[in-house]
């Protein structure tokens, strides 16, 4: 029966100072797999450093630490006591390609401790700002979370675009397009396209390029009008007569929100959607003006 192996502390680090170099692995520039060199081929970490720590009185102090390959202690006085001398070739800590992974076991216990305690470590809580930050912990779990969040955002943004058409399965007309909503989205995102099909493609490309921005603009606009419609209903600025939305005063018809039986929420949603189209823009302005007048009246009372 296999025994569960004890988890060994692991430090995955990357360089703090990385940047664009313009050097791409041949054939990858401009592709989804673009591999740009962003770090040195090889970087050596100094093998002598300082540890920052708080003493029993809570005062921040520093002491010298030294990395000797294979030596478990990083304190020079202890190393000297044990008769372990530095080796100028073996003690170097290289970081190839800007990364390194160190396990706190066997030969690398001292390496792990040195890297974690030195003031070169950006995530060292006692590190003074004056010390040079050379490396930092690779936040594997946070990076994975960010990746999933971004992917989710992209899916939501794309779904928003897909919802603008419905497969009706007809022979001649296979898809039905929610043209008023498409029109609204295009207006909000400055898209100028003639046909609903090409408008959907343009919207998809906007959604993919920056899903967060896409959703911010669309959802915010939709929610704003939805809130305004609800508010206007509450103030009795507009009323629904069956499926017909109209201004209460003067009974001026705004639009017919649907042909089937709808509950109030659906009606509000449909009206908000209409008000965001080119056709409904005039009514939206009028609704806003009437709401403001009504609000002022109530305030004066």
């Amino acid at each position, binding site marked *: 029966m296999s025994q569960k192996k004890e988890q060994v502390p692991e430090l995955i680090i990357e360089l703090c100072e990385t940047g664009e170099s*313009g050097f791409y692995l*041949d*054939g990858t520039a401009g592709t989804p797999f673009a591999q740009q060199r962003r770090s040195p*081929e090889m970087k050596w970490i*100094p093998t002598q450093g300082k540890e920052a720590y708080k003493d029993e009185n809570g005062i921040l102090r*520093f002491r010298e630490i030294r990395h000797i390959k294979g030596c478990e202690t990083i304190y020079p006085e202890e190393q000297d006591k044990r008769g372990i001398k530095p080796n100028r070739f073996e003690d170097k800590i290289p970081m190839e390609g800007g990364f390194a992974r160190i396990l706190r076991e066997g030969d690398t216990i001292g390496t792990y401790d040195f890297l974690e305690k030195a003031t070169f470590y950006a995530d060292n809580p006692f590190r003074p700002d004056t*010390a040079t930050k050379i490396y930092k912990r690779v936040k594997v779990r946070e990076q994975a979370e960010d990746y999933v969040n971004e992917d989710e955002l992209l899916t939501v943004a794309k779904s928003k675009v897909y919802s603008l058409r419905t497969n009706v399965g007809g022979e001649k007309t296979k898809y039905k397009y929610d043209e008023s909503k498409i029109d609204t989205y295009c207006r909000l995102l400055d898209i100028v396209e003639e046909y609903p099909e090409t408008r959907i493609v343009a919207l998809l490309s906007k959604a993919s390029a920056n899903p967060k921005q896409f959703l911010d603009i669309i959802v915010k606009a939709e929610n704003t009008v939805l809130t305004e419609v609800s508010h206007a209903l509450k103030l009795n600025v507009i009323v629904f007569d069956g499926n017909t939305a109209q201004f209460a005063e003067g009974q001026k018809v705004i639009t017919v929100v649907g042909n089937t039986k709808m509950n109030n929420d659906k009606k509000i949603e449909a009206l908000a959607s209409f008000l965001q189209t080119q056709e409904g823009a005039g009514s939206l302005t009028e609704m806003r003006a009437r709401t403001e007048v009504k609000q002022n009246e109530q305030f004066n009372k």
Partner: protein
Amino acid sequence: MAQVNTNLFSNTPFFCQKNLSTSEVLDLPFITSLLLPDAATNFGKCGDPNLGKTTYANYIHTLIRCGGRKIDMNWMEELFPMDNNIMSETKNIYNHYICDPDMNLYVANSASAASAGAAFWVTINKSNHTSDGTTTLAAMNLQFIDKDAGIWYTITDVDASVPFANRIELTPLDGTVVGSVKPNTPYLVGLARFVGGCQGAVDINSVSTIGYSQEVNFLRVRRDWKLCIDLLTGYKDKLQFMITYDMNGYPVDGWDVKEAMDMREGIRQLLNLCGFIGTPTTNAALISGAGATIDSTYTGFYGLLPTMKYGGGNVYDYRSDIGFDWEIDGEPIMLYQDSRKRTSKFMALWGRGFRTRMIDRTNKLVARQVSGQLNWDVYQRMNEDELKKLEIKAFEYMGFEVDGKEVDSWSDYRFLGSDYFSNLAIFLAQDGISENGRPMKPVEFYNQGVGKWTGNYEEFYIDFRKTDRTNDIGGWAAQSLAMAVHCPNQHILVNPVKV
């Protein structure tokens, strides 16, 4: 009005015995206040219209400079001559280098077989994949050799379904061995397969892409000046015909105004900075639209330092409070370069701080005779006196040759100098970089153009009295430039850090 008595100025121009070159002009001594651009914005501001006159009248000596040595702004182009640039007929150039093939593979995780002779799977390190992430050096049936332990495996299966995390199945050749591999250990790949007597064909495509390419764009710098001539006519005896001295001490004449000198100096300063620490413009707001300052052709290039730091150079961090120890710090990096069979000849550029803290406890650093020993391109064109001026120190360290040059600007806090640059050193490979077998310089400058229409330095003087009839004189100068650092991994950046 008192005359400004100095043998450096004359009201009668000599006709040029020699054309003024930009670098010589930069060395001209000048008096700032003699030719202040506009009385209205200088003397006038003090509320005393006679102040300018008074100031002149009270001058006794006019060329006593209050300050240190002249700022060395040209060090970059002195070492890698910009005027000796390579002409390109296009505005888009590519810098390409091919790395040495490495026949070793690294694994991403530790893995072991369940029993002796059993096969086991392991994931290949991300960096050992090709550009599409689906191929590594490890192909079916090749040998995977733990060279230090002397254990051989045959690669019996390859799973490339996850890009950049391809897995391979290893089966030890020795049936009594329990296979085991671990990260951070180079495993050598045998590049052919073992076969029996009647073998069939198995196609093996090895990793082919190991080069890197960088698009290098030109940049263009320009500076204009304009000066109200009233100041000159008002003090006609101050119209300056400056007698200057070239690098060899011969007098050269020509008349000039401070604004024109500032213009030249500004251009040299910016180009040298771009060559050293420059970065291209990628911000769309500066490239197009209402706030654009450049266009998409002249976005610029990465300078020497960013290329070494981010483009695959070798960076050796050392504690500047301790100093660079040739034995502890120098030997390992030289031996590392040797392990890749790279150069043993370096041109070292270092700051004052680095030089003063250099430690050679074991006296292995042996000074060499400079004359005739230096390989660096720019030194070959100089005579011994000129070399002395550059303060080149030539050393030999256990078979490694180092020509050291202190860069004055790195410790000049009026300009580029800082604690960081003063303690910095760059070891540039003197050889080992070649193109089709032909040795080439590690840093090259380029310009674009055909025939006489090039992006090289150009300067124009404008007499506005003849153009828009204002009482002004002016001018402008501009220069285009591109730069490439070849094979960053040949060079070493000795980078100071603080604890």
